[in-house]
């Protein structure tokens, strides 16, 4: 009786221990965002450690490799958005860390298009209305000012999004998983008992 209690207590202790504890190297994460005309990416392991010197490969939606590089000691890697005639659609950023860990992140075409496309559109529209040279210069300046301001304002939000992607393992999932295991072996036990 005492032994049984001991076992149960140990089990409960194990479950409590790993609540909210990040895990090590089961998984890598990559997060990327567009800022100005560049794409920035951050790579990190599940326990928050940065992936240093890990390989990053960028693919277009046809699956062709556009470029590759290594992350720096902060786990960051950035590259300029390739010109529009090279990419038409989403960009897939693949992180290949050591020991068989891999993650990918897709930047949608809208996200990329916003920065590259909008300048062109805006430049073309009002040009005919006012004197072309002055307005296009102003628009360009306004555009870059707005972008700077937005980038600054959005940075904390980007950080929040990144944080929320760092998935913590919830106790519900752990207990659910144990439940599944017991259930699966219950089924096995049922079939074994029918065999006899």
């Amino acid at each position: 009786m005492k032994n049984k209690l001991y076992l149960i207590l140990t089990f409960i202790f194990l479950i409590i221990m790993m609540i909210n504890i990040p895990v090590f190297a089961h998984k890598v994460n990559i997060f990327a965002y567009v800022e100005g005309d560049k794409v920035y990416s951050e790579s990190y392991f599940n326990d928050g450690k940065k992936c240093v010197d890990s390989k990053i490969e960028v693919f277009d939606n046809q699956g062709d490799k556009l470029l590759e590089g290594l992350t720096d000691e902060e786990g960051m890697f950035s590259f300029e958005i390739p010109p529009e005639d090279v990419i038409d659609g989403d960009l897939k950023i693949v992180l290949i860390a050591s020991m068989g860990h891999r993650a990918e992140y897709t930047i949608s075409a809208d996200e990329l298009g916003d920065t590259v496309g909008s300048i062109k559109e805006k430049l073309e529209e009002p040009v005919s209305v006012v004197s072309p040279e002055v307005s296009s210069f102003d628009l360009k300046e306004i555009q870059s000012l707005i972008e700077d301001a937005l980038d600054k304002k959005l940075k904390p939000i980007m950080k929040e999004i990144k944080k929320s992607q760092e998935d913590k393992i919830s106790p519900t999932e752990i207990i659910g998983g144990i439940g599944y295991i017991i259930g699966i072996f219950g089924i096995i036990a049922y079939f074994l008992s029918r065999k006899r």
Partner: protein
Amino acid sequence: MHISEGILSVPVLVAGAGLTATAVGYSLKKMEHKEVPKVAILSSVFFVASLIHVPLGPSSVHLILNGIMGVLLGWTAFPAILVALALQGVLFQFGGITTLGVNTLNMALPAIICFYLFSKGIRSENNLIAFSLAFVCGFLAVLLSGVMVAAALVFTGEPFIQVAKLVLITHLPVMILEGVLTVFCIGFLRKVRPEILDV
């Protein structure tokens, strides 16, 4: 330890899945009715152990426990590890579904090897012999798993020296930790539940 999707080449994946399926089939056929609860409990332990993160120096490591699984379960370690890994893959995205076969093989085969090498020794009357064998058991199981991960990567085409070095460096702390933990577990079981050690 958990190899992600999209890393390994197809022949390696197929070979891993095939071998795992064979081993699981064999052990399910061999499995005794009365063994099932033990397998289920140890499968849950394995499932949870990989989530526990032990701070060690600047980084942290997680437990695998395949040495203990091996000596306590024998061949039934295969279905136990398969089920636990499948759930880790589905719930937490550790590893992946296509790599399930390879990952199971990487962790369960060393467990079986440890079963044949140590399951008699750790029941020895002599405490010193039993405990040192328990340490070697935990240590060796992780080492072999690391070697198998490295082999899977090398067969896919990564340079051997680089992979081997990395595996050794990253696994050494885990090996020692698992060795010590195996000693404690076996010591505890010898005291309170010696019949569990009879496979």
